[in-house]
């Protein structure tokens, strides 16, 4: 009886891949339709709009002379450095805030206040204080990913099921064991969601930071292209930003699935 009800749950779990392959087909159809509409708009003569083929040719050109790769690497380096620093600091601080009421009381006003300021609004201040080199850009990205990860981690710790903590406690677990063996794994899903949000906001912040002052990077390249009315390059830049953002998000999603496979999906 009980075994049957356990087994009957598996087909529902198996349905997922089939559904996603159907969704994938629909996604591809949508992309093709989008390209056709774009081509039509460009040929009908929307002022200055390049066709997909022109953009592809431009992309080939930028790839061939190494510009695109250099720009993408420059942007990725900034975003990953800022994101890693932000996350590495956010996780311990989030745990502190969730676990110790004193730490929460001291840190929460700052976290909640800075969270309401868009990181982009910090850029003018960062440039004045830190110059126009790499530091202010990485700092702004750091701030963006720190703030989303810290709130998620903190929330994850606060939301840990109290019964799980009691279950560990009655088995004789010390506070230290409860923290390491219960609180940390139980809040992992929250942390990973926070990291994904953080990466998204870091990526968005990066391009804006590069628009202001940079010598290379995808944002800088688009800024240059704007001066020369070079729409193809702008399109290449936009697509590269989108594709890289999507790839990074999917990688984190994959890690999330791997690490939190144990979660009951409701």
């Amino acid at each position: 009886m009980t075994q049957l009800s356990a087994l009957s749950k598996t087909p529902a779990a198996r349905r997922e891949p089939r559904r996603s392959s159907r969704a994938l087909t629909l996604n591809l159809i949508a992309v093709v339709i989008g390209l056709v509409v774009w081509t039509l708009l460009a040929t009908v003569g929307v002022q200055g709009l390049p066709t997909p083929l022109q953009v592809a040719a431009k992309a080939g050109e930028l790839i061939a002379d190494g510009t695109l790769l250099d720009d993408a690497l420059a942007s990725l380096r900034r975003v990953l450095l800022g994101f890693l620093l932000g996350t590495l600091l956010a996780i311990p601080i989030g745990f502190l805030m969730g676990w110790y009421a004193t730490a929460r009381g001291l840190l929460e006003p700052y976290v909640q206040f800075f969270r309401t300021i868009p990181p982009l609004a910090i850029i003018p201040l960062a440039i004045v204080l830190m110059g126009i080199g790499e530091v202010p850009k990485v700092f702004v990205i750091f701030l963006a990913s720190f703030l989303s990860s810290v709130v998620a981690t903190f929330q994850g710790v606060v939301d840990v099921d109290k019964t799980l903590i009691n279950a560990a406690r009655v088995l004789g677990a010390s506070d230290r064991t409860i923290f390491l063996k219960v609180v940390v794994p139980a809040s992992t899903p929250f942390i990973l969601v926070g990291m994904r949000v953080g990466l998204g906001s870091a990526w968005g912040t990066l391009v804006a930071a590069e628009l202001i002052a940079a010598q290379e990077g995808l944002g800088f390249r688009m800024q240059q292209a704007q001066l020369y009315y070079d729409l193809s390059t702008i399109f290449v830049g936009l697509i590269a930003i989108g594709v890289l953002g999507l790839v990074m998000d999917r990688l984190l999603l994959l890690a999330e699935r791997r690490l939190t496979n144990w979660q009951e999906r409701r």
Partner: protein
Amino acid sequence: MSTKISFKNVVKTYPMKEGTFTALDHVSLDIADREFVTVVGPSGCGKSTLMSMAAGLVEPTSGEVLVDGVPVPGPGPDRGVIFQQYALFPWLTVRKNVEFGLKLMELPADERRRRAEHAIELVGLSDFADALPKTLSGGMKQRCAIARAYAVNPQVLLMDEPFGALDALTRVQLQDQLLDTWSQEQRTVMFITHDVDEAVYLARRVVVMAARPGRIQQIVDVDLPYPRTEEMRLSPEFARIRNEVWHGVYHQPQAA
């Protein structure tokens, strides 16, 4: 028989906006060694609070809770607790869940493994030892939680409405299984429930509690021999005791 758990004049109050809320009002109860006691009562009668005190998760406002004559110092592996909501660690397999308490005892790996196997076998989950909780049904989850409590070999089992969330059939199966293991390795059991049938079927004594303020209304002896059987459930004697308990729970005089 010697006394295993002893509640002496236990009071528990919670501060409210105005005045205090009395969850337990001078409750005294002795539970003998290896006795199976069920506690039944309407919601808000403080039955779970009483059990949590024996577990060391809640402290009495006044009065004493003694285990083996010593005041409860806090939670400990000598008293296994089983929660209504299973409280399995969802990221651990059945085996790892059962081994959780054993690891804290710092047992050697092979001893740990052996005791976990034994506990898992006892509750009939051997085929699911490497499954994650999310793949188990409610009844299997609760059996895993019971195995986790058994594994550390506690002398006392504290069960807080453990079968409350299960369907009727699974509940009866788990009741029989619980009695079965209890008769093999007798421990002291304090079992909280709101199900009168369950209370009578399992226990040697049924403690009936009343609400507002939480107190003991009466204690009903169940003079039915173990092992309990299905026929006993249908016997006139069972019906008589059941009626007595039912009356105690649902026709309580209003407190002043």
